[in-house]
């Protein structure tokens, strides 16, 4: 995705907060300020935060639905083809296409496919795995998985200007503001 550039390159500016409320507050302020390319990091999910960053509808449920349907059709199709077309055999006097007996497997296939698409879909949409990420360059960011809350304004943002942005973030009474290098 990124084109070649020579580091050090500024990924964005990061502000660290003590508690979730502060972060949510900061996020709101930042959007009001007109920043678009922002992201927030917290050690546990904060619903309000997601709203603050701007709601966007997730396509994940659709992915799962499709996955489930595919699994369902594939599962039943396989059984039908095997028992009625590929090698029809009289089993205990039952008809070749004994649909009631095919329900359990169809169900399991549905669930399996749906579940797989849920997990893989989530990872894909989140762009995971991504072991390397610029924010990790900030030493204190390790606390993002413990008890600290971070807000990042990315340099991709139209309004981004390293000094102005830093200044703005300082106004949000963060514990500390750092430049995220890439």
């Amino acid at each position, binding site marked *: 995705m990124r084109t070649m550039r020579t580091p050090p390159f500024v990924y964005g500016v990061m502000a660290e907060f003590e*508690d*979730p*409320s502060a972060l*949510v*507050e900061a996020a709101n302020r930042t959007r009001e300020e007109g920043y678009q390319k922002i*992201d*927030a*990091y*917290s*050690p*546990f*999910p*904060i*619903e*309000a*935060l*997601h709203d603050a*960053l701007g709601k966007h509808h*997730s396509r*994940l449920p659709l992915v*799962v639905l499709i996955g489930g349907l595919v699994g369902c059709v594939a599962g039943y199709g*396989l059984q039908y083809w*095997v*028992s009625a077309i*590929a*090698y029809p055999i009289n089993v205990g006097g*039952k008809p070749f296409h*004994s649909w009631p*007996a*095919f329900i*359990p*497997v169809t*169900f*399991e*296939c549905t*669930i*399996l496919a*749906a*579940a*797989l698409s*849920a*997990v893989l*879909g*989530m990872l894909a*949409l*989140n762009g*995971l*795995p*991504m*072991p390397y*990420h610029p*924010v*990790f360059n900030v030493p204190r*960011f*390790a*606390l*993002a*998985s*413990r*008890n600290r809350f971070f807000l990042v304004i990315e340099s991709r943002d139209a309004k981004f200007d390293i000094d102005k942005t830093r200044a703005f973030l300082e106004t949000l009474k963060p514990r500390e503001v750092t430049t995220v290098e890439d």
Partner: protein
Amino acid sequence: MAEGLVPNEDPGQAVAASGGPPVIAPGYTFGSVTDKISAIVLTRGTPLGWWLGFLLAFALVNVLLVSITYLLVKGVGIWGIDIPVGWGFAIVNFVWWIGIGHAGTLISAILLLLKQTWRTSINRFAEAMTLFAVSCAGLFPLIHMGRPWLAYWMVPYPNTMGVWPQFRSPLVWDVFAVSTYATVSLMFWFVGLIPDLATLRDRSPSRAGRVIYGMLAMGWRGSARHWHRYEIAYLLLAGLATPLVVSVHTVVSFDFAIAIVPGWHTTIFPPYFVAGAIYSGFAMVLTLAIPIRAIYGLEDFITMRHLQNMAKVMLVTGLIVAYGYLVEAFIAWYSGDRFERFVPFNRVTGPYALFYAALILCNVVIPQALWLKRVRNSVPVLFVIAIIVNVGMWLERFIIVVTSLHRDFLTSSWGMYSPTFWDWATFVGTIGLFLALLFLFLRFLPMISIAEMRAILPEAKVEEGR
């Protein structure tokens, strides 16, 4: 929707509302919760007790390996099975383990959907327990075959013979159900682990730890958008796992209900198997939770509240199971079918009467003590009852499998079954396997979901517009 992990009301109020002890002791912060739980994993020295426990379990694993090797060399004839009783310990243990494997997913999924915040501190190792139980269970259908090396024939794949599995057979349903269940449970467990893996990555003192946990965490950084999709996915999984968990034991019960064997061929089986599964599952969670919280000093996280709730669930499911026994007998009588009628009679008066009596005692009589608050409040008593229920549920499966088969239609073919040394060795061996895996889990992964614990802390509450 995404409130899933966040208590929709202040836990303090929740306590007030539901009465009884809180789901987490007061005075904890994000930091302290994180440190306390991750410390168990990240500690440098491994406690001696862990070593002892693990080595014991590992010894039993070797018993398992030996008995499986001998089995492969000689054949299933080393077990006590015969004609008419073609299924013995192998299937009994299979159903027992699978049943135990139900609590994890149930606690994680169903309680999640029901927004039961008390689940948070037990779901992690309940899920782990599920995985380990299922892997023990999965072993038996394989090794109980006359020619286990051909097990892959049960899987549909294009082969040079142009033949396929026979999809009318419940055993094929089993293959799909159990493998699906294992896969989904694994994913559910792993997805839940991701944020905690990130925590371990960030806190691990050793480079190796950072790298390994880092790889597993897949670069999780707690981005708000990620959290959003993460919760959707988690909820969807929960929604899928719930019918799955019900279907799995239903399918397992089909192994019997589909057959025409009197004592098996009954419609009550699916619900009563599922209830039994939850019953035994919670019993096993209690059996494990009680010592673990004591040993690792987690009483603050796994509080009396949890134990009491699990006790209540056991009481309910236990009653459903008891009801199952009643209906089974009633239907047998009501059917007017001489073969069906004979089964309950034979269970009560036949050569296996003692086992049946023990079953009723363990599964129906003793658990009634749980009606008493005093009992629910006494940890040791709960522990004992949980173990008794585990035994009882094993006996139930023994009764279903053996007493139905040993005297079916033609009196001329009536026979008996009794396990051999190798039956026992294999069974004990799987218990060893289960414990060994559990010990490894306790040592290398957070046994309580840190992220979710943070979410139920009071300080996690966000006051808007400050």
